[in-house]
């Protein structure tokens, strides 16, 4: 697995469309590491440590990927750099009803 480094957020697989904040992030430029690659994404809002931000624009119903696997579907349109969490991501598993 990719090792976290001193960058500000980390994506764990090249297919991931979210990155995890390694510290509390303020809106603005964020360095994101994935393997040896460093990219920059603009955080659209504050992202608490350990929470996710979108690396790309995501449509409603789009699969959200972390660790190279789908962790849920977008329940709203998500802009690049937006906070991705339970308000706009829904599990595909063990749903009631």
């Amino acid at each position, binding site marked *: *697995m990719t090792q976290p480094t001193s960058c500000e957020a980390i994506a764990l697989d090249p297919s991931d469309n979210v990155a995890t904040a390694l510290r509390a992030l303020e809106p603005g430029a964020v360095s994101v590491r994935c393997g040896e690659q460093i990219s920059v994404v603009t955080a659209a809002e504050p992202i608490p440590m*350990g929470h996710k931000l979108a690396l790309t624009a995501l449509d409603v119903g789009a699969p959200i990927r972390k*660790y190279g*696997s789908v962790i849920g579907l977008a329940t709203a349109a998500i802009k690049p750099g937006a906070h991705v*969490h339970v308000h706009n991501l829904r599990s595909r598993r063990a749903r009631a009803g």
Partner: protein
Amino acid sequence: MPANPTFLGYRRPSGRAGVRNQLLVLCINGLTSPAARRIAASLPGSRLVATPYGRGQFGADKAAHERQMVGLGRNPNAGATLVIGADRESVDHVAAAIATVGKPVEAVALDDVHEDALALADRGLRAGARLTHAISRARREPVSAAELFVGIECGHSDATSGLVSNPLAGAVADRLVDLGGTVVFGETLEWLGAEHVLATRAATDGVGQAIRDVVLQREAAVAATGTDLLGNNPGHENIRGGLSSIEEKSLGAIAKGGSRPIRSVLAIAQAPDTTGLHVMDGPGFSPESLTGFAAAGAQVMLFTTGAGNSFCNALAPTLKISAHPEAVQRLREQIDIDASAVLLGTADLEQVAAQAFDLLLETASGTATWGEILDETAEVFIRTGSSY
């Protein structure tokens, strides 16, 4: 690391080695738990494990109850076991099963003393004193690390668990398996959404299919209750920590078992037939999950957490791991392994894993965990049905 690392353990008649040498006061029936408490309180250094259940159990639930009682009684960290219960038949049944591994065991029952709970406490105290005297003769001796059986658990996980603490526990697990040791992790619900990854690590197609099957069974059981998993698993503390779905939590959680082939899917409290890595089909609630591991014979636990989780197993010393930079500062007397330097990028994971493996061996040799010092411990029994 030396080629053949060892720890100092207590050799048992079963051939296995204990990392602690306690008298286990094992109450197998809730009716006698007050007497068991009196007995254990009168025997400093003994370890009380008392179920509140033990009657009116049937089928798979009864079988799981018995596996837990017998398995805990056989755990090599107990030098001897005192069985306490309501009737002579049930205490004899459990004591005989424990004695098959050569463990010194005595059994006292309420119906032996005409249902007099105070007389039961007196009789149990005398038997416990004899057993305590016998096990005080045990001495530690060098034992190969290959004889360790480690249970790996996570609780109150956050994003740092999946990024650092679970991969760290996994790296320790890989080291132990490569030396010939045994590892188990469980919490079936936390394979949900990651079972496709886990199944590819199965040693055989049959084990891979068994992993998929038990996940689907748990998922169906949760759905049948009409409740949504969100808010329960991931729980509120997981959500605060940034985990948004069970899939995300699971994909981080499965890293704690490392990367070696999965040899079997164990039932609750079932001892593995081989060394190597195993998974246990059991509950996600840590206290119960840990009891399942201890009853399967685990001598030490590794327990990863994000924001903190103080709960430890009673029979097996439990090493707490966190990579959360604030939690490790706040919980200095509760977190045994500080992995925050990996998160902050000032240490690499293999380096901290090597230190964690050394601490695992030291703990097996007698160094106390914070959980032991503070006695933040219990056994919590797993039920698979209600009492009738």
